């Protein structure tokens, strides 16, 4: 698919957000909205990276802390903290990120397959890495990150 698109010079639109010092991108088609931090109701007996649920205009949506999901160290939520509401395979989930402030177009030709580990994130969770003039973007594979089977596996290993 990448090869095919390359010839056409296609681009994808991605939302850029920050986690630690790295910049990540998710396909804009998978993003429903970006919200400020709000009250999260804790849900007991769930994996630690599941922070709880929020009320998003009448719909209850589970929230995942991406730092915690990737095993990074925790950081206090602040003014810049955002919740990115994504829609993956009929599932709506909110992702807590350090900041989200940009939407850009990336030519598909700039996307390379991911190296084994980038910024501490395993390659299975990545779609690829986009090298732009001044910055390096890590594109996430949300389907894999939010896969319930995957979550069960993690629970087994006590994460």
């Amino acid at each position: 698919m990448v090869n095919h698109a390359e010839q056409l010079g296609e681009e994808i639109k991605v939302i850029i957000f920050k986690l630690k010092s790295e910049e990540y991108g998710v396909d804009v088609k998978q993003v429903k909205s970006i919200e400020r931090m709000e009250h999260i109701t804790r849900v007991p007996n769930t994996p630690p990276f599941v922070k709880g649920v929020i009320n998003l205009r009448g719909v209850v949506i589970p929230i995942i802390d991406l730092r915690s999901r990737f095993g990074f160290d925790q950081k206090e939520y602040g003014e810049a903290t955002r919740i990115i509401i994504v829609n993956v395979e009929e599932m709506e989930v909110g992702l807590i990120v350090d900041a989200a402030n940009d939407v850009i177009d990336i030519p598909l030709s700039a996307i390379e397959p991911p190296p084994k580990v980038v910024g501490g994130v395993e390659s299975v969770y990545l779609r690829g890495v986009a090298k732009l003039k001044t910055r390096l973007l890590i594109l996430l594979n949300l389907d894999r990150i939010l896969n319930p089977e995957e979550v069960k596996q993690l629970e087994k290993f006590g994460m």
Partner: protein
Amino acid sequence: MELNQYLEIFLEESKEHLQMLNEKLLLLEKNSSSIEVVNEIFRSAHTLKGMAATMGYENMATLTHEMENLLDLVRNKKKQVDDQMMDTIFKAVDLLEQMVISISNGQNDQFAISGVVDLLQAISSDKRSTPKLSSTADSQANIEHLSFDEYERTVLKQSLESGFTIYQIEVQISEETVLKSARAYMVFHGLEDLGEVLKAVPSVEELENEDFGNNFTIVLISKQDESAIRKKILNVSEISGVQLSIITDEQLQSTVERLKPADDHSEGNGPVEAKINLQQGKVHATKMIRVDIERLDELMNLFSELVIDRGRLEQLAQEIKHPGLTDTVEHMGRISSSLQNNILNLRMVPIETVFNRFPRMIRDLAKELNKEIIINITGADTELDRTVIDEIGDPLVHLLRNAVDHGQETTEERLKNNKTRAGVISLKAYHSGNFVFIEISDDGKGINREKVLKKALEKGLITTETAHSLTDKQVYDLLFASGLSTADQVSDISGRGVGLDVVKAKIESLGGFVTVDSELGKGTKFTIQLPLTLSIISSMLVRIQDEKFAIPLSSIIETAIYRKKEVMNAHNQEVIDFRGRIVPLVQLHKIFDVPSTSEQKAEEEISVVLVRKGEKMAGLIVDSFIGQQEIVLKALGSYLTQVFAISGATILGDGQVALIIDTNALIK
């Protein structure tokens, strides 16, 4: 012709008629001499035929036509109802059902019907070869077919004496007409300008209900001539033919009051009465509307949003303490409560829609197993939420099949045990509080405690030591454990070891319970308890540290305050004495791992919510009670399925999410 828009109506009505056929056929089987019942069956078959032909389903039309022929012989007493005939007709109905299902799945009615048609024809032509009788009866409604009662004869005679002419008019509506009753109404309306309609066959009521084929007959008293009447009728569109004949005095004399024809159901249709009926019919028609269930769901969702806002308003009013605001909010609260009841009622469907297929099912099963079984259904008009109705069918089928298959003994066994020849299975539904109960009981052999224990031991569900200490009730509950079947032999019907556990899971997923009670040799009773509705529930809000949780009121017995020193210990388990019963305590903050924010004060008292699950109880320790509130059930989202002891979430007045505690998971 574009028929798609009518397909929905066709399917809906076909199902109704098939259900009617099933019910009446069962009645006929019991009481084979009732001409009334035969007539009703005949009419349903006839309507089905008409609808199928209109929609272009030839196979369906042919099959119903043959059924009609046979039934016509029965109603004209030219044939006796026997077992073979019943079985064949049932077969035909089954085939029709399959066709309707197939059509509703977007396919057609192309089923092999020749076998059943041949059978029907064979029975019809057994002694007399008059299979075409009914179709001729359709088109030639002449004077022989009409009879007048005393009153009508008097009116007709007087009319003739005063110089009126009496017309018998047969009107034919074209085959493709969809709103036949509307056309009939227009004909009536037109004729009323010209004279008085004395009588209609089929009756006005049946015409209103579209309970007729493509033609009907009217007796009109008028001073107009034939052509004027003919013109008036033909002015109505989609009328394909009119036949007029004049009833003379002699004919009237010779018309002897006979047995009323089948189609003339209502009594004494005088001219005035006919008019009133028509008007009433009209009112009736506007009273009922069919509404897409999705629209009701949407209404319910919108209302749910309103309930959340109501909660918010109530909270604000409490904070602001403005008397005007408080009054208005209270008033609004009352109105929205009754609005809520109304909306919930809209979604209520009588459980009849589930029950009505059971008599037929039991009959077939009993025949197959060579048992004699009577089914008694009571409370079929009990209403339940549509969502529950859709889900409850399968579990009930399962329990009924169980009851027939290994609840009931064989006829020989029954006679040996001094029981009536036929086994009785009763199905009973009733309301109680916020619940609907459904009981399925049989007067069969009951549950054999030893047999259940033996099986449970084999499967390793219990140990030999515990086996003796179990109460009967606990033993029966083992039946719901997965993989346990006490049927000696695996039959086609039940005993495959999948079953009661699935039934239980299904019922619990609907927020209900199922229990079983039995007496050896006397019978078994399954009781299902279901909530009236699923989307808005009453709950008790409680606080644990800084977190709020909702506990469904339906599972709460009461709330209580206990002193710390009243708490006792038994086997490392904190318990309290609740009216003489020892009830285990559950530390909710431990189960839910609630982070403690304030210093644990050495409080003297604990707040306890006493909850139950069937016979069992538990006391949930909370920090404080907030109060009772109507809450709207929401799912946690598909990412979080099956969180321990949490059944869902709701949105509170302040916009925050509160979790709903699944107390069933906390009671062991």
